[in-house]
């Protein structure tokens, strides 16, 4: 009886095998993502400085959320995060799409060009940050030297001491690091578009711009939609670039929600408050992802 019960080859129980094979992955995800998430959620409702796993639970409170929503620092961090997401995502898409279209054409040295387009993606984030920190160094950096030589400015720009300049340094570093991902994804999408579509459009007399607008973009939309969500989430949660370049400064000009979470948790040891920021960030990410994925499905052929 029991042998027949465990017979996974039976058509009615074949899906059990699938669940069984998925079980280790689900257990792992539960352990490293779901459990910390619940711990974080629980901490966000406690007034707690440094958290200890085996410590008795503190009384339930909404103070962390009250403090968060009335804090100008939180709204500033939201604003900085949104600015970064919009600027970096848009620029990554413009550069990524442009370079993908370029290296999708046949020309001499295309392989090398593809390699250079993808190169920043292969460079570890911290190395990229160190390179850009040197390029934008306020006293001995390449960019100041170049600007002075070209007559763009007569005096040194303090890239990391001016709020606007610091924001753009962070954005440029992120764009450089992030556009190859868009490029690679788009290139894969471009190569899957049947040549017949373009040939038919050419017969109908469509211009290059019309072919791009009415064939390339709509067919690429599913790829672009997913890519956009992934890029946005990457910008949303990216920590190391900002931490190493500006540490959220000057004057919180580059303090995103992830930097604020880190500062509160490990800088000021306010774990409960930091958890509340983390939970709100998660909710914002989910909402943004749902909105973007919804748009993607509407835009498909």
């Amino acid at each position: 009886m029991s042998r027949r019960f465990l017979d996974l080859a039976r058509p009615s129980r074949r899906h059990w095998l699938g669940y069984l094979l998925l079980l280790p992955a689900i257990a792992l995800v539960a352990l490293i993502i779901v459990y910390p998430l619940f711990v974080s959620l629980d901490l966000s409702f406690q007034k707690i400085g440094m958290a200890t796993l085996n410590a008795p639970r503190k009384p339930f409170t909404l103070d962390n959320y009250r403090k968060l929503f009335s804090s100008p620092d939180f709204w500033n961090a939201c604003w900085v995060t949104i600015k970064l997401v919009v600027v970096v995502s848009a620029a990554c898409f413009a550069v990524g799409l442009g370079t993908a279209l370029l290296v999708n054409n046949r020309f001499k040295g295309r392989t090398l060009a593809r390699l250079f387009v993808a190169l920043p993606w292969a460079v570890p984030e911290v190395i990229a940050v160190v390179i850009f920190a040197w390029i934008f160094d306020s006293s001995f950096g390449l960019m100041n030297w170049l600007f002075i030589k070209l007559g763009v400015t007569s005096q040194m720009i303090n890239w990391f001491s001016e709020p606007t300049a610091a924001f753009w340094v962070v954005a440029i570093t992120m764009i450089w690091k992030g556009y190859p991902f868009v490029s690679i994804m788009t290139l894969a999408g471009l190569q899957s578009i049947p040549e017949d579509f373009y040939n038919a459009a050419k017969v109908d007399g469509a211009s290059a711009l019309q072919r791009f607008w009415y064939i390339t973009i709509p067919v690429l939309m599913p790829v672009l939609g997913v890519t956009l969500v992934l890029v946005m989430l990457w910008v949303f949660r990216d920590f190391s670039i900002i931490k190493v370049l500006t540490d959220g400064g000057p004057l919180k000009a580059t303090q995103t929600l992830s930097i604020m979470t880190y500062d509160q948790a490990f800088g000021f040891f306010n774990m409960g408050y930091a958890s509340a920021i983390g939970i709100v960030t998660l909710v914002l990410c989910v909402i943004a992802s749902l909105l973007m994925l919804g748009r993607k499905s509407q835009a498909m052929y």
Partner: protein
Amino acid sequence: MKTIGKRIAASAVAAMLVGAALPTAASAEVLKFVSWQKDEKGVGDWWASVIKEWEAKHPGSTIEWTKVERSAYADTMTTLFAGGTPPDIVHLASFEFQAFANNGWLEDLGPWVEKAGLNLDGWSGQETCKFQDTTVCIMMLYYGTIFGYNEEILKQAGVAVPKTYAEFLAAAKATTKDLNGDGIVDQFGTGHETKGGGGQYIAEMASYLFDVGARFTNAEGEVTIDTPEMVEGLTRWKTIVKENLTPRDLSAGEVRKLFADGKIALKVDGPWIYSIMQQGAAKDKLKLASVPFDPPLGGSSNVLAMPSEISDEKKQLVWDFIAIATSDKFQTSFATLAASTPPSPRADLTEAKAQIPHFDLMVESQKAAAEHKIDRIPVGLEVQFNEFSKMIQEEAQRMIIEDLDPAAVAKTMQEKAAALQ
């Protein structure tokens, strides 16, 4: 028969020896020790010597020494303690241990000190380790700053070695130059870290503040920022940074390297600057003198502590480690190996003075700073120090970026600091 008897006797002795050895093997412990100073030349060697001594005194037991970078130290230690697996030997910076103590994670060392008869009278910076009337740590370094200068640059600019702030400012202005006329300043009068953490930022600006008598709090822990002295101190800091007498946006390590390579004329720093000077391209031109600020900046640096949650057996072993590190012998070797001023008043500095030409300067500076109870960590704001230092950094940066009146900035700092308490 005789042989058999001998064999039995030998076997019995061997069994006894094995039996005697077994408890030792069973009680062999591995103590975990996490530190950011593991690979630091000098002080790292000193820690290694303490570990060696401890292992020699505890045969079979070992110390597992792991390096964690300073930039990731607070996160790592917090995670270790939060997860219930703290290192057995706790090494923390003097500006961060308060948060751990406040959470009840650090053992009260008072009874241990008393039991061992460790005399901490005159132990530099030890009062910083008093937290809510308990001794939660032992101070391992309280330093006084020293003053490095580039003799050649000063000579070329026609200025003498400064002895006061006014002379320092004049020398810094005279030596900040665009040497090749390309419009880019490539030699600076002095050097400070102006980005990075709040704690370091306060340490960088503190000399200018303390020199005019400004203090963040008084002995009772009341905030005393909104004073004419602080306004003058902030004005000095603003002058140094705003007039680009220091390179901007560099880390403390990068600034020290520039000084060692002859790109900076004057540098006030801790005792560690000497070893960095020795490795620089301009090492022959670099000299040391007394700091042109009175009192010199001093400060507690790092502490040793014990977790409250470990077993009593392990606590004893950790205390043995602390006892070795604080012994006269090892406080004496700290001076020679780390080339720094040991906190113990009983350390014999004769050899260090013979080996290190400027050692007297360091001792004098440490004494002067300690006498004036100088520390970048203000009384009454120890637990909130990270938040406090970040606030001071931001308000000072705002003063420079938005060209604000230092008097208004002092007022804002006063309000925000009081709100933190």
